[in-house]
């Protein structure tokens, strides 16, 4: 199988502290890949590196053959790799609708058009509404994003990411702070919306990981200690001691 | 040679004076995130206070009392004007101080008249401290230097060693959370702002000994203090010191250089006959140098010489 996203010997240092210590990771086209690991293992950092938020200290990252490292976040996003943030990051002062329309326009490269009114771009508007519908925010269309409840904000965050129709999606703890019900719903949502896309997700809730993902990589202290199918991971003794404890029973 | 030595001394002292004025600004900005446009006005108030008090108590007591007065005014401003708009964000606070500039200047005009007041220098400061060739280096410049040095030491200790410093630095970003840890944010803010104002007042009182004490003082000091703070790195005290000295020295020496940019290029064999900017004498542009410096810094090292990354 071909890897869409491929990391080779990726290293990241912050001053003296080496946080990512040579990560090799191959995310296969169309698979749902989970990245788990103890707090502070470097999962978010890895995301930052892939999405261009941080610069590599060493190694290389490829997206379907093209080098990502060294490119700006914007460039990477335009190459079809989108991410969500662990700390919710949306446009608080704008309505849910405007948030989504913005993302849609960005994807269609129409977001900097200065010679037409945004309201004239009805197709974009329709898509925005549809995407709100998809994450159950339809009733909140005109609410300023800042006034949404936390969970609603997470949902919007997700919708923004998906609105880019990316080939590869990076999700950092998409269900954090959601009730079990919400979480379950969100997982279904992710399933539906990322159909046919490649998905790399960081998640601490094992039920979700096991329900959602085809393969799991375990990151410990900046190294990938294991990559395998859920069942195998669950029964992997190292992983249990390093991360799971007795959270799941194989 | 004499010229070089004296210019060096002048540059350093001028730099130190700049530091005196900008330290309070840096403090308030670094800790409260408020860029106090009215800082120059506090400087002016300090000068007038020094002048008015000195006429009653004599010079030296005035040097002590004037800053106190200004600090009190600062406290009042923070409590009754700034505090209420705090929740509307920094922009709003900045605008408030921006408005204060006009109010204070006009009040000064109203109360002390539009002209510079006659602020005599005490004899012990008037006499020269040392002689370089046939140029004297006056005592009050040494005085300025000493005060500035003391100021730096004191502030540095305050920020590094006290918890108040910690509280305020934290409160810049998350006032709510700080109060949720049991700290009375508003009180600390008031104290810090008062301190900043007091420093400006001290600088004004000291500077008023030499510079004409007039309602335009703030105006003339102008944005140079902002330049210092930005070049040094917003909120960094050592940065402010370095920047002040840098600006002090560069402007001082630039004055002596009559060469034009064109000359410089020509000696490099470039640009034979370019008019405009290339034929302006450096000496006549010494006032613009700080701004060049600022732009340069902001482009090369946006967070300032010693500023911590945003």
């Amino acid at each position, binding site marked *: 199988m071909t890897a869409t996203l491929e990391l080779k010997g990726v290293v990241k240092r*912050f001053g003296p*502290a080496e946080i990512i210590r040579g990560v090799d990771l191959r995310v296969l086209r169309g698979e749902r890949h989970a990245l*788990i*690991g*103890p*707090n*502070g*293992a470097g*999962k*978010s950092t890895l995301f930052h590196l892939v999405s261009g938020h941080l610069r590599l200290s060493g190694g290389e990252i490829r997206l379907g053959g093209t080098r990502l490292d060294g490119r700006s976040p914007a460039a990477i996003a335009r190459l079809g790799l989108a991410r969500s943030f*662990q*700390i919710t990051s949306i446009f608080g002062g704008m309505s849910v609708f405007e948030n989504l329309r913005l993302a849609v326009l960005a994807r269609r490269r129409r977001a900097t058009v200065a010679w037409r009114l945004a309201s004239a771009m009805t197709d974009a508007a329709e898509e925005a509404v549809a995407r709100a519908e998809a994450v159950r925010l339809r009733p909140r269309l005109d609410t300023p994003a800042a*006034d949404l*409840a*936390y*969970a*609603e904000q997470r949902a919007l965050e997700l919708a923004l990411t998906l609105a880019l129709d990316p080939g590869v999606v990076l999700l950092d*703890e998409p269900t*954090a*702070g*959601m*009730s*079990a*019900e*919400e*979480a*379950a719903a969100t997982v279904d949502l992710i399933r539906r919306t990322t159909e046919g896309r490649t998905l790399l997700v960081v998640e*601490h809730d*094992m039920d979700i990981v096991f329900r959602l993902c085809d393969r799991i990589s375990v990151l410990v202290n900046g190294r990938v200690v294991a990559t395998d199918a859920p069942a195998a991971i669950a029964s992997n003794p190292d992983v249990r001691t*390093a*991360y*799971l*404890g007795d*959270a*799941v029973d194989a | 040679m004499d010229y070089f030595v004296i210019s060096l001394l002048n540059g350093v002292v001028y730099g130190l004076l700049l530091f005196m004025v900008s330290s309070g600004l840096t403090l308030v900005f670094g800790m409260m995130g408020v860029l106090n446009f009215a800082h120059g006005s506090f400087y002016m108030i300090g000068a007038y206070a020094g002048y008015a008090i000195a006429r009653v108590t004599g010079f030296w007591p005035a040097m002590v009392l004037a800053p106190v007065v200004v600090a009190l005014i600062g406290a009042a401003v923070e409590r009754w004007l700034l505090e209420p708009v705090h929740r509307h964000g920094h922009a709003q606070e900045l605008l408030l101080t921006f408005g204060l500039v006009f109010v204070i200047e006009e009040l000064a005009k109203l109360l002390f008249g539009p002209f510079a007041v006659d602020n005599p220098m005490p004899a012990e400061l008037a006499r020269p401290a040392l002689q370089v060739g046939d140029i004297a280096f006056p005592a009050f410049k040494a005085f300025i230097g000493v005060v500035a040095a003391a100021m730096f030491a004191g502030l540095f200790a305050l920020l590094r060693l006290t*918890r108040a410093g*910690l*509280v305020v*630095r*934290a409160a*810049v*970003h*998350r006032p*709510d*959370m*700080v*109060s*949720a*840890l*049991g*700290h*009375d*944010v508003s009180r600390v803010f008031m104290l810090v702002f008062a301190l900043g104002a007091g420093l400006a007042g001290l600088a004004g009182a000291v500077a008023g000994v030499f510079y004409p004490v007039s309602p335009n003082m703030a105006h003339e000091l102008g944005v140079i203090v902002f330049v210092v703070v930005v070049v040094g790195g917003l909120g960094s005290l050592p940065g402010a010191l370095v920047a002040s000295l840098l600006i002090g020295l560069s402007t001082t020496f630039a004055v002596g250089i009559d060469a034009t940019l064109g000359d410089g290029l020509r000696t490099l064999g470039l640009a034979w006959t370019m008019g405009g900017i290339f034929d302006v004498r450096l000496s006549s542009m010494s006032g613009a140098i700080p701004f060049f410096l600022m732009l340069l810094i902001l482009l090369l090292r946006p967070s300032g010489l010693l500023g*911590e990354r945003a």
Partner: protein
Amino acid sequence: MPEPVLDVAGLEAGYGHSRILRGVDLTVGPGEIVGLVGRNGSGRSTALKAMVGLLAPSGGSVRLGGREMAGRPAHAVVRAGLAYVPEDRQPFVNLTVAENLRLGLQPGPGRRWRVDEMFEFFPRLRERARTRAGVLSGGEQQMLALARSLLGGPRVILVDEPTEGLAPLIVARLVEVLRTVAAAGIGILLVEQRLTIVLDLATRIAVLGHGRVVHEGPPGDLRGDSAVTQRWLAVSGH
């Protein structure tokens, strides 16, 4: 049941025109762990904010050890012994971990915790003591937030979704910590999404709905497919 330290009665609060809380009644006794659950957006975080004074209550009373707290500024309430751990952790990004903790350190009315006790709880924090909190990992920030508030020596601590973003091992650790804290005689009001954890920890559970406490009782009430869970949480069985 012992005399409650925290006694909330008819608490009302909201944002601007939208009224979120319509009279919440709650009590927390010393050393007691009370779970506060409800749907997303039901107002649990709002309730905590209103109790600690970060959000001015528009009505009702919040008594701490018999003294009225409603309407008093947050710092006064906290000094009186009511600590608060926000749901979004709120680290002081420009300070180091150590400095963050130092800020929390206060001579509170409750048990005096020491900084290295916190490091015992969360060894990870000791490793990161010198780093700026802004760059901490999500989980690390969560630990920091809890430790920071405990250092204030509270009598009651309000915790908003502490396990969010924590790895399973750490979650287990956290549960231990909360038990220890409670054992030290400190009341805990716990807002938590993962019902399993609440059921495991709490001695009493209050359910928030329509801006009121619509049900209160021992964890048993919410075990299994009870009517309450169906009606107010609608959790498809665990």
